[in-house]
């Protein structure tokens, strides 16, 4: 309670500061409290000596960070180190020093909303969640000093958007972990922007699109009015769920249509030269942008009504009977059950639409996220090439490509693959025709097996090559939370802040995607031989069934 009194005192004092004053901020961290000298002094008094002089007067104990349970009771460093708990990190943007206490009030509201929202994940699992609030001071939104560069901007797609630097957030999380809270390991980060507009749509970047261990959600203070925004956006950022609803105008359109852009995709240096070279020449591998977007580690939406393509020894094949999701009305599927990631706007029904609840498929993943073993094998597999029957392999090595919808599953990512390659080998022996011996043969089946460990495999899509598809690509990427594109010079391209069509081609970015594909080199050396191959995936708990056999033919 003293902390809050101190905050209130500071707030009151700051409220009396004169217009000629400037803020001076420095922090000395002591446990989870900081000695704050954030105050205002007359510009004429800014000297080292005067700072030292005023220290005793202005040193006030203010929390830089707090750890709270669902009921707002304090949690400890021991709790943070306990692997049975999951953590949510809550940080501000656009809150000035004077608004620090408002941030902590918002933190409490956020926790309460998360913990009392029907039967959603953060309510059912509230005993297993720790909320870490970390105050980051800075200027107001839209000013150069706003924490994480937070701002509210007119959006090329929506009316207004919350914007901030995801990279700055990631750097801050790393810095906190390296200093104040070594045991910080958030499953999701929620940044709240100090703004009360109600025509701004909150959004989040799921971890699979950010490529890290957590995603980042953005909301403003207006979003604290209910539990929906926080639980939904952290459904993206912490659980890697994607939306199951459909955008107006896209009810009849199919996500597969965006595969029109697949021929523009380039394999980058994360692939072997073989894949890059031979695919450019012959297009013998089967990869699709629709899969990269909607079948790339996310669990609750799939591009097939029965996502399982192979046998799972611990579960029946999953059924996703409802079509729609990831904006498109067709070509994506989700499981039955009204839930937090859906909406009543399109095709509502007893088992389809919004509720403060989750589908059975979502619960499978939520339980795994909170420590249960995976409920299924990583069974969304496909041999992706060379195209079955491919005739043109040259040289003494071939590279096969595997599609694995769970390669980047956030909670049971594939740990390894078993790849089998088989061939018929001719074995000669002496046979008899009456009294005459002759050399005869039989073909014997040989199978070799190898463990392959997944590595990051990326593709690139250059905005300059998109021509008229630029706005479509921008829409899709902004919609899934990809708001920043790293630039070669180390900076970032803010994708969602202006229409691509207004940007000179020289400044257009190259989009890089981490893919659900993996490769394996096969030392197939025999001429005029058909080789067969298949694979299975291991998720650390269960090995899937094998894919069907595919073949390639080694000519010369």
């Amino acid at each position, binding site marked *: 309670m003293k902390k809050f009194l101190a905050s209130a005192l500071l707030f009151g004092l700051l409220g009396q500061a004169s217009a000629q004053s400037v803020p001076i901020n420095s922090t000395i961290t002591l446990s989870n409290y900081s000695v704050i000298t954030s105050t205002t002094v007359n510009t004429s008094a800014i000297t080292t000596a005067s700072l030292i002089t005023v220290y005793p007067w202005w040193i006030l104990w203010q929390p830089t960070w707090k750890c709270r349970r669902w009921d707002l009771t304090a949690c400890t460093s021991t709790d943070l180190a306990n692997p049975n708990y999951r953590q949510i990190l809550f940080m501000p943007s656009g809150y000035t020093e004077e608004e620090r206490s408002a941030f902590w009030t918002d933190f409490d509201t956020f926790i309460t909303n998360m913990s009392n929202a029907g039967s959603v994940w953060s309510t059912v699992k509230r005993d297993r969640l720790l909320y870490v609030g970390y105050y980051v001071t800075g200027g107001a939104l839209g000013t150069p000093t706003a924490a994480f560069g937070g701002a509210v901007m007119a959006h090329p*797609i*929506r009316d207004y958007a919350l914007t901030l630097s995801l990279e700055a957030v990631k750097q801050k999380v790393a810095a906190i972990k390296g200093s104040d809270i070594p045991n910080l390991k958030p499953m999701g980060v929620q940044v709240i922007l100090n703004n009360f507009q109600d025509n701004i*749509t*909150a959004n989040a970047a799921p971890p699979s699109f950010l490529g890290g261990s957590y995603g980042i959600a953005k909301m403003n203070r207006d979003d604290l009015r209910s539990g929906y925004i926080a639980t939904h956006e952290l459904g993206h950022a912490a659980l890697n769920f994607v939306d199951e609803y459909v*955008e*107006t*105008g896209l009810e009849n*359109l199919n996500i*597969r*249509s965006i595969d*029109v*852009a697949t021929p*523009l995709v380039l394999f980058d240096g994360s692939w072997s030269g073989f894949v890059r070279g031979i695919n450019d020449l012959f*297009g013998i591998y*089967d990869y699709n942008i629709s899969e990269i977007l909607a079948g790339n580690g996310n669990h609750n939406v799939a591009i*097939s*009504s*029965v996502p399982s*393509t192979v*046998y799972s020894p611990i579960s029946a*094949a999953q059924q996703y009977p409802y079509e729609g999701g990831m*904006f498109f009305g*067709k*070509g994506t599927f989700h499981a039955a059950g009204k839930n937090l990631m859906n909406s009543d*706007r399109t095709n509502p029904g007893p088992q389809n639409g919004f509720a403060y609840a989750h589908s059975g498929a979502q619960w499978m993943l939520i339980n795994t996220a909170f420590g249960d073993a995976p409920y299924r094998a990583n069974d969304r597999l*496909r*041999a992706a090439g060379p*195209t*079955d029957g491919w005739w043109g392999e040259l040289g003494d090595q071939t590279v096969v490509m595997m599609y694995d919808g769970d390669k980047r599953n956030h909670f049971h990512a594939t740990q390894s693959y078993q790849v*089998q*390659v088989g*061939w018929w080998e*001719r*074995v000669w*022996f002496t046979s008899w*025709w009456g009294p005459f*011996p*002759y*050399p*005869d*043969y039989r073909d014997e*089946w*040989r*199978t*070799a*097996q190898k463990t392959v460990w997944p590595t990051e495999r990326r593709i690139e899509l250059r905005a300059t090559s998109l*021509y008229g598809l630029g*706005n*479509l690509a*921008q*829409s899709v990427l902004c919609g899934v939370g990809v708001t920043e594109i790293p630039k070669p010079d180390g900076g970032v391209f803010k994708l969602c802040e202006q229409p691509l069509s207004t940007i000179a081609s020289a400044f257009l970015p190259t989009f890089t995607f981490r893919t659900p594909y993996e490769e394996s*080199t096969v*030392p197939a*050396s*025999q001429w005029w031989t058909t080789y*067969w191959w298949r694979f299975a995936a291991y998720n650390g708990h269960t090995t899937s069934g094998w*894919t*069907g*056999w*595919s073949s390639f033919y080694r000519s010369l």
Partner: protein
Amino acid sequence: MKNRGLVVTTLALAAGVAIYALKFGGNAPPPPAAALPTEPTQGERIAAVERVVQERNRNLGEEARRFEADGWQMVAADAPEPRLTEMDPGLIAAGRERELRVQIASTTTAARNARNLGRILLLAELPETREAATDALGRIKGDAGKIELIEVLTSGKLQPDDLGRRQIAAYLRPSDLDAELAPRIAGLLDSKALTVAEKEQIAYNLALVGLRDGMTLADDVLATLSPEARALIDRMTDLGGKAFLAHTDSHKNH
């Protein structure tokens, strides 16, 4: 009559040679003893054949050793079954549809299997098998798979809400608007066999291909389309060319 006997004898000899050739697969033993200067013993015959066998087995296991040297391990596994790998529709009647579905859904199909997949799409009892067949046909490079899909779509044999039919229209994308298949795909916009949603998907595909390449359908192709079909393509081109996310789910109404 004499000639007839000669013909019969010649045919019999030819048949014998053919059988012998087939039997030994081009690996016939040495010529009969009568052709040799001296009669080989049975032991010599066996030794000669064994030398041939040994010579031909000279590289036996070499490929396995090559794999092992590359870090692979030789294991026992069942060989592929041709009926599965060739996607034989007869497996449905044989009660093996689930195996067939795994084969279809978990591999990338060759164009030579398009016909079989087209039959499976119509014959399969499980909706997920039909869905997998459509996906497999749609992923085939080239036109063979798309032609099968067009035939199924226009046949009216699958209901619009059938899982096997729902994705077909989305796969009907010509490689470009000058492609041989483009007029046929565009012509589907005037087909009475298609639903409104299917026509929208096809028009959207044509629009996106055009936006990607900076092209439109050739004038003579457009001339064959109804005004409604042309208007649909225009509408989809407009939709594809602008940012589509109105984000109508405002996130505020829950």
